[in-house]
C-alpha cells in the first residue's frame, strides 16, 4: 500500500511512536469511529474444523472457505486439478482481505500513537 519503506524508516528512526508488530494493538478497538465496528464472526464450527483436522494456524476467520475447498477436493479426488479453482480463489481472497485488515490495523495504531504523542507534547 505504498508504506513498504517509509513506515519502516519512520519506525527505525523514532521507535517511541512505532507500533509493535509482535503484539496486539494497544488502543481501544472502538475508539475514533463514529459508529461501532462490527464484530468478526466465525462461520465454521469447531466440530467441522476438528473433522477436517485443520491446523491451529488455519482455524481463522477464513476457515469456512478452506473447508469448502477440502470438500471439493475430496469429491474430485484423486485429481482435483482446476475443478476446485473457485473455492481456492474464494479462500485466497478471504485471506488477502484479512491481510489488508492487518495492514489497516497497523496504520490505525500508528496514527493513534502519533496523536497520543502530539497530545502529550501539547
Amino acid at each position, binding site marked *: 500500500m505504498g508504506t513498504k519503506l517509509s513506515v519502516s524508516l519512520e519506525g527505525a528512526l523514532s521507535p517511541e511512536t512505532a507500533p509493535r508488530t509482535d503484539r496486539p494493538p494497544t488502543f481501544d478497538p472502538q475508539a475514533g469511529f463514529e459508529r461501532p465496528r462490527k*464484530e468478526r464472526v466465525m462461520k465454521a464450527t469447531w466440530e467441522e474444523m476438528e473433522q477436517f483436522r485443520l491446523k491451529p494456524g488455519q482455524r481463522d476467520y477464513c476457515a469456512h472457505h478452506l473447508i469448502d475447498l477440502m470438500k471439493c477436493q475430496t469429491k474430485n479426488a484423486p485429481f482435483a486439478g482446476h475443478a476446485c479453482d473457485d473455492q481456492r480463489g474464494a479462500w485466497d481472497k478471504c485471506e488477502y482481505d484479512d491481510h489488508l485488515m492487518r495492514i489497516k490495523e497497523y496504520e490505525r495504531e500508528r496514527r493513534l500513537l502519533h496523536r497520543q504523542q502530539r497530545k502529550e507534547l501539547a
Partner: protein
Amino acid sequence: MNLAPPLRRVLAKRYLHLTLLGRNQRGPLTFDGWYPRDHKPGPYPENDEQRRAAATKYGIRPEDYKPMNKDDPIKYAGDYPDFGVVTFDHKDPYEDYSDRQMRRNWGEMVSIDMMRYRPDRLTFTGLNEEDYTYWGHFTIMARVLVPMLVLTYLFTQSDPNIFRWQNPAMPKQYPYDFARAFPFGDPRDYPIKNYSFDLE
C-alpha cells in the same frame, strides 16, 4: 629412447625406400579407419599442378606450400603441409582470436603436431603453475562466500521492529487464543473478540 634431434634426423633419413615395403612406417597414413572420409590427406604431390591443387585444398599460398618429407617415416603424411613448430607463444597475443584460449581462429590451418604443442600442454607465456597460489584460491572463494554470509545475516534477522522492506502489519487475528491453551487446554475456553473495519 629419446635421441637428440640432430642425431634423430640423421638416423631418420632413409637411404633405402623401405616405406614401399610397408615396414617401419609410422606416419598418419599407415593405418586405416582413422580419418573422416574427407579429412584424409591425399597422396604426395608429384608435379606442380598437384602442388597447386593441394595448396588450394589446404588454403595456403602455393609458394608457402611445403609437404612433409617423403623419406621421413615418422612424419610422412601425403600432401599435408609442413608448417614447422607452431605453438601458442608464436602467435600474436593481441589479435582477436575466435578461440582465445588456443590462439586460433575458426577454420585456421593447423600443423600436424598441433596436439603436441597445445597451449594447455606446452607454453611459456600461458598458464603457469606458480600463478595458482593458495591465496588466489582463497580469494576466489571468499569473494563469493563472504557477501553471501553477510547478506544471509542481514536477511535472517527476526526482530520485527528493525528497518524492513515490507508492508508492516499487526499480528493475525484468531477467534481463540491458541497460544494460551497450549499444550493441553481447550482453545474454546479462551475466545477473543475481534472487530472488522465495517461499521454498523
